[in-house]
């Protein structure tokens, strides 16, 4: 149970870090994003932009912890039969977090000011 909480925490932390890292990309993404975020939002994104790499690194670190805890072999438990519903949920969260982090890494290549 405690391990599950750690995995969920890692996943949520990675998602949050990834989202913030992705958001920093939107400081200069154009009028559509400006319409969503407004002056304060794009200004905040620009202020966070220098720290983008730290958010990505934090995301990756949390993902490493989460995946290791979620997928490491457990004593006496081998194969799909040992995967509980809660474990499936936590693993799904992890993959969502991984996708968020990948998006944060590749977004600057597609969002150009």
């Amino acid at each position, binding site marked *: 149970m405690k391990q599950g909480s750690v995995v969920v925490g890692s996943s949520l932390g990675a998602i*949050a870090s990834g989202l*913030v890292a992705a*958001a920093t990309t*939107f*400081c*200069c993404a*154009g*009028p*559509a994003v*400006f319409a969503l975020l*407004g*002056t*304060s*939002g*794009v*200004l*905040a*994104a*620009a*202020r*966070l*932009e220098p720290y983008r790499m730290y958010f990505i690194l934090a995301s990756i670190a949390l993902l490493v912890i989460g995946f290791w805890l979620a997928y490491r072999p457990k004593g006496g438990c081998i194969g799909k039969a040992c995967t509980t519903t809660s474990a499936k949920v936590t693993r799904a969260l992890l993959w969502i977090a991984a996708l968020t982090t990948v998006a944060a890494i590749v977004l600057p290549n597609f969002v150009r*000011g």
Partner: protein
Amino acid sequence: MLLLSITACNRMGTEASYVVMGNTSEVVRKAFNADAGKVRVVMLVSPTCGMCLKGASEVSQQIAKVDGKKVSLYAVWVPRLGGREKDVPAATRVVADPFTREYWDGNDLLGVAYRRVLGWKDDDAWDVYMVYGPRAQWTGDLPPTPDFYMHQDAEPGLRLDASVFGAKVKELM
């Protein structure tokens, strides 16, 4: 949550009035020359670009610290990154110096002009912060070459560091 909290903590002032340049930069030229004897700082910034807003905020905070009688700040809002005139009022809130002269350059006249003045090859000038000494005069069609400038674009030149820029302003005073 972090982004929202930083957004909430952004110190932004009230909207300021601005002048629409129209088809000529004459209004800026006249103001520039009328302020002869003062150090003048000219910013070309987009109202919808986060980096421009950050740059304008930081540079104006530096200018606000010095004697307003010795320096004048001009914020020229340009139509880059989809910026439109209706975006200017909100953008003026990031400029800390209340004595700033603000302009909307809807035809990007100064962006084109400064591209030639600064020798930029790939793009019109924007997200650029320029400082002129007290003796600078705008006599021709093009604005004079600044004594110092920094920018946040991909063109060659110094990347904006507001504290370094502020020190340069004080040096020219």
